[in-house]
């Protein structure tokens, strides 16, 4: 009751506060959206070069996008796109299987290695990622996976091999499914495998989608591992290295607007996926905080 009254008859002071809050939010929102707005503008800019004397472009064109997908001579973006797509598809299959398997086992099964595994995962998480990466390169080299198209296999391995350590979010989700549903299925005659595939998986669609998407996105946005493992093999570059290269001194004048176009091209699907997934991200985090 009280609240209703207050709402209908805002005091002048309250109104001022509300106005200021909304003004502040508007300013902040502009700060946050401006760089994204600017990159979209740049991707349509007609004049080349990274640095211009005006903030807004003088002319607009669609040629940056066309150049990005047709110019195969200097920086072969279509090829990079294909490379990344292949890697992403395989990586997605393996990582999803790894993450879901480990999460399900840790959430639903009880075995002696369970606690040690979780502790080991925590300890390994404290090492800087690069430490393993440099040595991974040597191991891949010893296995002959650092030359030619074998680099793709190398990258797939690097991206998916250790995903079994990232079980927290999916495990948190599985933990929320009542155990009695599993038990009912077991009494109904299901094996653990059947519980996994016919009960838990259908009930966990959101987290399965989340896992598939995150593992699909990973190769598109990583440039560090890719750079270390590809080294100078230009025909094996992924999109991220390509974009990174476009900003290097030798290319930046010619390619800067194409970089913007490329950034827009890969950002749109990822942004859509991310906005769709943020719900699971929040839920997963809440779960991780709780447990």
């Amino acid at each position, binding site marked *: 009751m009280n*609240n209703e009254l207050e709402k209908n008859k805002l005091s002048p002071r309250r109104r001022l506060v*509300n106005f200021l*809050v909304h003004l502040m939010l508007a300013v*902040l*929102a502009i*700060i*946050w*959206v401006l*760089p*994204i707005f*600017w*990159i979209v503008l740049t991707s349509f800019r007609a004049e080349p070069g*990274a*640095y*211009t004397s*005006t*903030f807004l472009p003088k002319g607009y064109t669609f040629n940056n996008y066309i150049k990005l997908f047709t110019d195969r001579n200097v920086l072969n973006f279509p090829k990079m796109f294909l490379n990344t797509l292949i890697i992403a598809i395989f990586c997605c299959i393996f990582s999803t299987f790894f993450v879901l*398997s*480990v999460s*399900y*086992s840790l959430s639903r*099964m009880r*075995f002696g290695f*369970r606690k040690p595994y979780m502790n080991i995962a925590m*300890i*390994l998480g*404290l*090492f*800087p*990622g*690069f*430490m*393993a*990466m*440099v*040595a*991974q390169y*040597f*191991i891949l080299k*010893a296995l002959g996976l650092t030359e030619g198209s074998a680099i793709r296999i190398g990258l797939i391995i690097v991206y998916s*091999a*250790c*995903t*079994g350590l990232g079980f927290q979010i999916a495990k948190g989700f599985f933990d929320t499914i009542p155990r009695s549903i599993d038990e009912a299925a077991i009494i109904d005659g299901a094996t653990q*495998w059947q519980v996994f595939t016919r009960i838990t998986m259908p009930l966990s669609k959101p987290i399965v989608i989340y896992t598939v998407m995150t593992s699909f*996105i990973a190769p598109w946005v990583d440039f*560090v591992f890719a750079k270390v493992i590809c080294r100078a093999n230009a025909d094996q570059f992924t999109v991220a290295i390509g*974009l*990174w290269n476009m900003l290097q001194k030798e290319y930046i004048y010619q390619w800067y607007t194409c970089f913007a176009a490329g*950034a827009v091209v*890969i*950002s749109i699907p990822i942004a*859509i996926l*991310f*906005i769709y997934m*943020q719900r699971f991200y*929040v839920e997963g*985090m*809440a779960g991780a*905080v709780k447990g």
Partner: protein
Amino acid sequence: MENNRSNVKNALLHGDLYTRLSAVVMGLGMIGHKQVIKGCMVLLCQLAFIFFMFDSGIHALLMMPSLGTRAQEKVWNEAKQIYEYIAGDNSQQILLAGVVTCFVIAAIIVLWIIQMRFSYKLQKELEEKGHVPTFKEDIRNLFDKNLHITLMTLPCLGILIFNIVPLVYMISMAFTTYSKEDEHLMLFDWCGLRQFSRVLNMKGNIGRQFWHVLGWTIVWAIFATFLNYILGMILAMVINRRDTKGKAFWRFCFILSIAVPQFVTLMIMNIMLQPSGAVNILLQNLGLISSPLPFWQNATWARITIIVINIWIGIPYTMLQITGILQNIPAELYEAAKMDGAGPVKIFFKITLPYMLFVTTPYLISSFVGNINNFGVIYLLSGGGPTYVGDTAGQTDLLVTWLYKLTIDQQYYNLGAVIGIMTFVILTIVTLITYRNSGSYKNEEAFM
């Protein structure tokens, strides 16, 4: 009672002939106790191990202490009238082979223990029940009560081969002279803790840089973690206010900025803040400044810029995570405080913040760890620069980015490994201290 425990001691003391023999011929205990296929598989493992050891393992182990001695040589070939290169020892490969061999040996020891215990268990089962699972039943169990073995084997192998082995390999490098310094890239030696003392010694060049970088890393991690945390929380609370209109719209605006891949936004930021970048041009056009601001050229400017940009990146994340938790704060707490006459600022510091700190300690720890290891932000924004002449570490380098520069750019592998180990040690200490003192940890204790 005691004899029933299937451990190696009991297996050796009370096992029958097969069980005891399997100490020498692995798998015999299983073959003798009606699990022929499994036993043969274990036996095959042993044979493969023996083959491996004689083929290369023993050699690899023998080479480990010296890490190779023969340098690459140039020999004059009389017949062809040219110089020929004779490949010398490659210490890095020798070290890798040695580490791998150690892991193989460890694996066979584990397998030996498991099969000893298992043989004894089988023997007992056969004595008591007269029946042991057939191979078919074992396979079926792998999809039922032993499903975790089926599901976890591949991921564990992946982690072992591509995380644990590389880490051990990298750690072992810290104790060698493997570095571009003094041309030790092909042939290097063990050198004990010398690299550690170099890094820790404040008077040396490397040591001075290390303490410098470490100091900045910690300052950065504290700022990055807590500023993001508090500002993100305030933003979440402002958006969640009862009187705020268009909550979903505001949230969308902020989420949009993290939906774009981080490396893209970071590179754009880098360009925008260059002397002739968009920001400087905008400010100059508006007449606010006369000469460009040195965002990346001056160490202090660079540091502040990085922290501010990290806030720009981090706040939406914190907002996302905290929105959910905020709604879980019991409303009675607020009402009680309001009754007691507390203002909004007091409520924030007396109720919201303590509650959030209590609930989100694990999240804070993981974000602190994440920030210490935050490679992307530094590398893409400032590249660690500005760098003074003669230094390998720039003024904004973190331990991780320095580690990257030392190993990938400079090829000072041993120093890189030491830095990596130091980072791990620091993180472990921080994590343990905060975790031990956190409410969640004590709570778990109380819960037990």
